[in-house]
């Protein structure tokens, strides 16, 4: 009974939108008229050279994922196992880098690497032996770099770090004692034990990379680099929109992601998950005080400064520019844009909306995700494999399509249309959107808690709610804080999911920034970007403070 309800619940929020996409891809009737079956959309998609090229570019751009996996594993290992000097700062910086909205950060990079005005290019060309610009951000390497620096590496470091920290060091110490060298231990012990986590990080980063949108849109379009998500955007934003084409392309993408999810699930089933947290605690190895740890530390601090803080500083400077990107005018600075934005009633409304949505989605989402994750790991239900797969589906749906789908559902279901114009559809869309990452992360975390810790509470007479609140949640508290942060930050910066649902009364800050950019007010957009970044800093700091106080005291 419970199993059936659980499956139906998960199915309703995950499979329904997918079916909607599939069915709509065969609907060739004009907007607003009755359903009419046809293959027109599919034919167009397969006959378009541009669409084929967008698929190729999508995969070319995703080469950053395997590279980032190696880099991120090495960094996590240095941070957690070697505890290089400054490891706390570096880890915080990666969190911060990941949580910062990509859109304003990309503007920071444009200020640095633009072919004509980019600060790096301008400064390098002052050197005697360089007479042409070195960098060009509007290019495939440019797109790869922005993602690599701001999302791909940071997301993997923040995913691998906690898992590595939870891995009992005695496994590695046993290898050391067997006479294995550091590299052998890493290759034969650490990496195999962490393989499920590495696979999770890889697949999450890959999917993020496949559905990335804003950066490709801004940096790729000028040089004719289209990716799958920008093609969909093109189809949908045409007047009238080409929904069948968009949905057909969405279906192809969905099939690819589904295949990835099935492979991943099969892999996890094969290796199984080991409970590595026991009540006996984790022994940590001492930090080797060697000269090279300082050298590595300097390199990594340099890396995070260049990839994360430099574009942020540029962004901040840019927001005080009279004209965005022009630093070498006689009198380039002004605070006029700040004053204008802060006085704008739309901005004040947006800040309230954004924070409300962020906190609600964060808190409600974390609770729902952890219940779903617990059920998937512990409960004895039938259809577990199916549920596991279904949980992935929302990621297979591009944000924009999820938005359209929910909008359609809200407007077409009698009784639900009163929700239109409120923030409820936004909350729903965002919770569904964040379901996969939230559930996957918490699932891994719960699987690492030895089941006997919960059984002990059962034997004490505690009921489910009590056990969940007093034993399970506190034990996975650090991961709960991480998931909250991830969800909060994604919500804060999300454009694609909400862009079509939000009414003028429910514009978020990210949407406001998007609107400013579209209307050419780059300076105002930058101001909003800086404010979003500041909120991110505050929330990240607070979460870290809380996170260090909760969980297991060692």
């Amino acid at each position, binding site marked *: 009974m419970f199993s059936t309800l659980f499956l139906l619940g998960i199915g309703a929020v995950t499979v329904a939108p997918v079916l909607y996409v599939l069915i709509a891809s065969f609907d060739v009737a004009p907007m607003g008229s009755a359903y009419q079956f046809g293959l027109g959309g599919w034919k167009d998609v397969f006959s378009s050279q541009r669409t084929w090229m967008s698929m190729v570019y999508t995969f070319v751009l995703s080469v950053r994922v395997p590279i980032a996996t190696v880099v991120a594993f090495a960094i996590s290992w240095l941070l957690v196992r070697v505890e290089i000097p400054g490891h706390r700062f570096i880890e915080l910086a990666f969190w911060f880098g990941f949580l910062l909205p990509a859109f304003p950060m990309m503007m920071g990079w444009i200020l640095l690497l633009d072919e004509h005005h980019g600060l790096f290019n301008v400064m390098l060309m002052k050197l005697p032996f360089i007479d042409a610009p070195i960098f060009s951000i509007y290019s495939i390497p440019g797109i790869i770099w922005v993602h690599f620096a701001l999302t791909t590496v940071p997301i993997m470091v923040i995913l691998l770090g906690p898992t590595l920290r939870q891995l009992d060091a005695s496994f590695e110490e046993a290898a050391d004692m067997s006479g294995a060298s550091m590299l052998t231990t890493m290759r034969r012990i650490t990496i195999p034990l962490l393989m499920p986590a590495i696979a999770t990080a890889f697949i999450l980063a890959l999917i993020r990379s496949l559905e990335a949108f804003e950066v490709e849109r801004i940096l790729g379009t000028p040089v004719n680099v289209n990716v799958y998500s920008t093609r969909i955007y093109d189809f949908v934003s045409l007047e009238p929109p080409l929904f069948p084409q968009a949905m057909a392309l969405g279906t192809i993408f969905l099939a690819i992601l589904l295949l990835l999810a099935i492979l991943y699930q099969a892999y996890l089933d094969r290796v199984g998950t080991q409970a590595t947290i026991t009540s006996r605690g984790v022994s940590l190895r001492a930090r080797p005080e060697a000269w090279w740890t300082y050298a590595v530390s300097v390199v990594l601090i340099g890396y995070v400064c260049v990839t994360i803080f430099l574009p942020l500083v540029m962004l901040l400077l840019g927001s005080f520019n009279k004209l965005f990107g022009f630093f070498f005018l006689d009198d380039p600075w002004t605070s006029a844009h700040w004053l204008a934005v802060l006085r704008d009633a739309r901005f004040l409304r947006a800040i309230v909306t954004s924070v409300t949505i962020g906190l609600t989605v964060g808190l409600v989402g974390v609770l729902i995700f952890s219940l779903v994750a617990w059920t998937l790991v512990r409960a004895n239900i039938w259809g577990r494999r199916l549920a596991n797969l279904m949980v992935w589906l929302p990621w297979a749906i591009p944000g924009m399509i999820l938005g359209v789908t929910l909008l359609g559902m809200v407007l077409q279901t009698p009784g639900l249309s009163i929700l239109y114009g409120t923030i409820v559809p936004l909350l729903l869309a965002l919770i569904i959107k964040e379901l996969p990452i939230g559930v996957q992360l918490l699932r891994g975390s719960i699987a690492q808690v030895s089941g*006997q810790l919960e059984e002990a509470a*059962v034997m004490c*007479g*505690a009921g489910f709610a009590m056990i969940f609140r007093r034993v399970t949640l506190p*034990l996975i508290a650090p991961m709960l804080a991480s998931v909250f942060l991830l969800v909060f930050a994604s919500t804060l910066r999300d454009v694609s999911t909400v862009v079509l649902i939000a009414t003028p009364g429910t514009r978020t800050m990210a949407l406001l920034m998007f609107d400013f950019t579209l209307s050419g007010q780059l300076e105002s957009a930058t101001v909003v970007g800086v404010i979003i970044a500041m909120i991110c800093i505050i929330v990240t700091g607070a979460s870290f403070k809380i996170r260090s106080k909760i969980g297991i*005291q*060692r």
Partner: protein
Amino acid sequence: MLDVRDLSKSYVTDGAKPVIAIDGVTFSVEKGKIFTLLGPSGCGKTTTLRSIAGLETPDSGEIVVSGEAVFSSKTGLRVPANARGFGMVFQSYAIWPHMTVFENVAFPLQVRGRTPRYSRRQIDDEVSRILDVVALSGYEHRQATQLSGGQQQRLALARALVAKPSLLLLDEPLSNLDAKLREKMRFELKRLQREVGITSIYVTHDQSEALGLSHDIAVMDRGRIVQIGSPRDIYERPKDDFVAEFVGTTNFVSGEVLATSVDPAGYVVQVASGPLTVATSDTLRRGDKVTISIRPEDVQVSTQPMDGPNTWDAVVDTHMFLGFCQDLALAWGPVRLEARVHPSLTVEAGAPVRIRIAPERCVVCK
């Protein structure tokens, strides 16, 4: 007090045949006694314990506590684990690492849905009473993970006992401790159990723990109970060679029944080294093939002449001095015998000795 009737459970694994975990397990335990389930890993002892706890659901059978069923496959009754009111000590202790000692012990009092609920004061009192019993007073505000292995073990015990459960379930509670501590905790457990007077079910694969702690032992093998009896019964009169081998070390000598013997009442069994007189009340027939179990400590060894039944010449093959005793490997004709003798006996490898095996110490295993 506890009646377990015809409990069976099998696990279905992917593709393969279902694995039978327990098969028709039946036993009963009197109030205030320690009952031990003893057996090698995979014999079903833990499944039995977890079924009693309510953490697993057997396929069939019945579990009755103080006349009230908590599980019955016939009526479909299954009282959930958290409503059975038992205490349990887990093999890993399952001490919650995010709570202090006090919080761990107070938990059962806080969550048990009884009326009236415990007041804060009562909780304080009960916790300090039980911490006193397990000698952890003064550790209330330590983080649970800062305790040593033995302390964690006692904490787990305190948590299991604090709400005065009707039944205490112990799943290999000593297996994570070092040998010395294990021995100490064994005495401690026995003292505590006597003090609290609680009916306990103890699961272990360690025969010395089982023999030392229990009032009754059930030896399990491949999902079935092979023998139930007092520690002395199990050790001195093992029902078959599995029990004899598992409960302590033993010598197995095989032979064939030659004739009945009158004094002592029993049989003469022809073994490879000669005729052996065996005292038994079992009914055997001439020509039956039997295995005889002889405990090493029942082989008397002397450098002086000895007489009486079952006295033979043998040669010391190897000897191992252990301090409190010495273990000898003897060549008794073609048969190899292990003997445990007093450390004062001085023998060397290769020396001839006399051995004697009392007929009532020869146990026939079928």
